[in-house]
């Protein structure tokens, strides 16, 4: 049941009615828990066992940690607490390890041993990667670490905790929420807020437009022609198309998630803040998949030492964090390369301390235009990010290098650009849509989403919403691809 499906429309409507029909918070949480498991089991009911296991372990570990908090400080207490934390880490990373990384490490072990002349034949696993496993394991793990660090009290209600982990709007692809932010929302009474709900619907509609009208149509070109044998100019266009496809796909998903959560009185964190208007790669990473970037900052970069042990060590920490982030996206070397490229590109700004000095509230600055310098900085940032996307989208490092080589060597040849003629009709149709999408985001960049139009009279807002919905339906591809981040 994906967000852009008829099933989800019906599901969310029914759950909304049932949710506000009951008054007590406990019943609401129980309802959210049940429907979230139905939502998740819609893919495969067996997946529910995994999320229940992850939730149960972290709920138990949280309780244990809070109990030991009251014990006398000493090595025994510390040992108990570390053991409990290790259990949570082993469970969550173990689940990820088995379902996501086992074959990757087994294959590379074989290759590594073969290079030493040793023949190994470990068995590979034919496992389906459960949807959302990378997201909810990180959410529960983060929560347990916060309890361990004493920054968050353990949740004592099983229903509240399980509902928090499985909350359906953000279950399968985030935003990866922090316990300190989302858990208290499950623990307090929620009152219906018409303004919040209406704004949530608008945000979800914009997310739907991003996914259905923009991302899915860009995908038709990317999926068919982003292969190393395509001509360089086609690959260059595909790279830019993919950059916008993945952005609108994932930002669209996040907007629907955040908007849907608002209908139920929950506030989720912003996950995308117009990243392509960034003026440095470091800024880009403060605007792209914010919930994951901050997770890695708080639970990987800072524990590694952050910027506290000198610039050289900070540089290594940045690179390591980005490489691990790459590996989180997929068990393959091209994802590792993608992480490393971004780490290297972000490093100078972060190490020099300039990243903190740059304003980030309004992307592109406060003026109506970014100015020549700002525009060039944005273009340069976008270009670097696109080099990273080549590795992200390719099937291997070799394929990515072939694509980059073709782009560099063939794009200088004017005649080679005639290869785009075969796609002229498609480009004529998609480019105005994409330009409109970017312009709308630029004009509304001071707001959390594009459809914040409080000053407009109601009739004109409704006309716009109607036009957007039916416009998106009109251009919806016949076989829309799944959300890209579902594969992670």
């Amino acid at each position, binding site marked *: *049941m994906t967000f852009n*499906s*008829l*099933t989800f*429309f019906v599901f969310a409507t029914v759950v909304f009615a049932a949710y506000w029909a009951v008054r007590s918070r406990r019943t609401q949480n129980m309802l959210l828990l049940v429907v979230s498991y139905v939502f998740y089991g819609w893919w495969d009911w067996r997946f529910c066992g995994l999320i229940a296991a992850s939730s149960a372990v972290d709920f138990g570990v949280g309780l244990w940690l809070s109990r030991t908090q009251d014990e006398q400080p000493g090595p025994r207490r510390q040992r108990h607490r570390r053991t409990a934390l290790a259990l949570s880490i082993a469970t969550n990373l173990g689940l990820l390890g088995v379902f996501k990384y086992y074959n990757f490490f087994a294959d590379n072990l074989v290759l590594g041993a073969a290079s030493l002349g040793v023949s190994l034949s470990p068995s590979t696993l034919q496992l389906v990667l459960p949807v959302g496993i990378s997201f909810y394991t990180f959410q529960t793990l983060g929560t347990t670490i916060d309890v361990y660090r004493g920054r968050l009290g353990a949740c004592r209600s099983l229903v509240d905790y399980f509902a928090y982990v499985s909350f359906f709007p953000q279950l399968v692809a985030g935003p990866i929420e922090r316990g300190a932010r989302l858990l208290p929302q499950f623990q307090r009474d929620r009152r219906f807020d*018409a303004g919040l709900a209406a704004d949530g619907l608008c945000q979800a509609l914009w997310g739907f437009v991003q996914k259905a009208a923009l991302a899915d149509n860009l995908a038709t070109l990317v999926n068919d022609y982003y292969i190393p044998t395509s001509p360089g100019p086609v690959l260059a266009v595909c790279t830019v198309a993919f950059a916008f496809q993945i952005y609108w796909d994932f930002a669209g998903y996040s907007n629907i998630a955040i908007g849907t959560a608002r209908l139920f009185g929950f506030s989720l964190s912003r996950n995308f803040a117009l990243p392509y208007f960034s003026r440095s790669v470091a800024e880009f990473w403060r605007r792209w998949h914010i919930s994951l970037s901050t997770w890695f900052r708080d639970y990987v970069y800072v524990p590694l030492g952050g910027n506290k042990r000198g610039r050289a060590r900070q540089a290594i920490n940045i690179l390591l964090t980005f490489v691990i982030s790459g590996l989180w996206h997929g068990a393959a070397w091209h994802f590792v390369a993608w992480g490393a490229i971004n780490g290297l590109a972000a490093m100078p700004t972060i190490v020099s301390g300039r990243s903190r000095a740059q304003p980030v509230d309004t992307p592109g600055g406060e003026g109506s235009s970014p100015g020549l310098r700002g525009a060039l900085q944005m273009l340069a940032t976008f270009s670097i990010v696109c080099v990273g996307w080549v590795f992200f989208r390719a099937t291997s490092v070799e394929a990515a290098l072939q694509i980059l080589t073709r782009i560099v060597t063939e794009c200088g040849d004017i005649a080679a650009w005639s290869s785009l003629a075969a796609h002229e009709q498609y480009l004529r149709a998609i480019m105005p849509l994409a330009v409109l999408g970017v312009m709308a985001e630029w004009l509304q960049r001071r707001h959390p989403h594009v459809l914040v139009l409080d000053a407009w009279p109601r009739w004109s807002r*409704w006309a716009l919403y*109607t036009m957007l919905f039916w416009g998106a*339906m009109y251009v*919806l591809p016949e076989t829309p691809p799944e959300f890209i981040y579902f594969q992670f």
Partner: protein
Amino acid sequence: MRGFLLRALTFVALQMLIGVAVWFGCPRQSDHYAAASIDKRQRLASAPSPRIVFVGGSSTSFGFDSRVFGDTKYTSVNMGHNRGLGLPFMVRQAAAGLRQGDLVIVSPEYELLWGEGSDRTLITHIEHDPACARYLNFETTQRLMDGGLIWLALKLRCALHNSATDPVLLFTRSSFDASGDFAAHRGKPRRPHTAALGGWPEADALNAQPAIAELNWMADRCDEVGARCVFAFAPLREERHQIAADSARRLEALIRAGSRLAVVLSIEDSLHPGSEFFDIGAHLVESAATSRTQQLRRVLLPESRR
């Protein structure tokens, strides 16, 4: 809350009004090929016992000639309609009307032995024959609901451009004869075409387990009602077989080993030269269908010589 609900419902009502306009703005064909589903279901319900029931896609409606059984005690019901309906739908539709003493030949297209049907075909059929939705299994229902917006999108494009949602309208509801055999092509010249020769998976990659499970589900239903159910491989072009011989061998081995339906026509029995196909599909010309059915009759009813 009340104000919000009022505004939200008004907005939804407005969208539904547009939706209704879109729905009726799309031209509807009364003689649509998918509507033959109603006729086939009615024939299965009303044909006197014992019946010989053919189950499959369009290759079944083209590939069997019911007249061959005209002098036997069996009344023929050809349920063959559209490959896109998928094997789960086909067997459920047939199983719903089975009776004791029926002789059932299940002959799905090869693609359905390792793959699924087409959501678009299913939705088109449900639109023209809503009652047939009861033959969907849970997984297919899930898939169709998940893809429901696409149908709305197709309807919208159809309404705006005044075009049909199904651009391939080569066949119509009235193309079938009283037994359900496809008859509109009889006596007509073959449609020139280039046969598509690809499309078979590698032998090692063949997974027929879901299809075998469906065939065994059908075998159970047949046992329950006291019908005799068998399996016949669909017609296959010789040139395609040459390319995919390994896969074909493996597929037949998998079906024979896994399915509880006896195989009465092997792949070897079902090979035909390209000249015996009417068009690009696995659609036999009339004479080839007749000889194939005679061959089937010799296997199934060896005592009743014609």
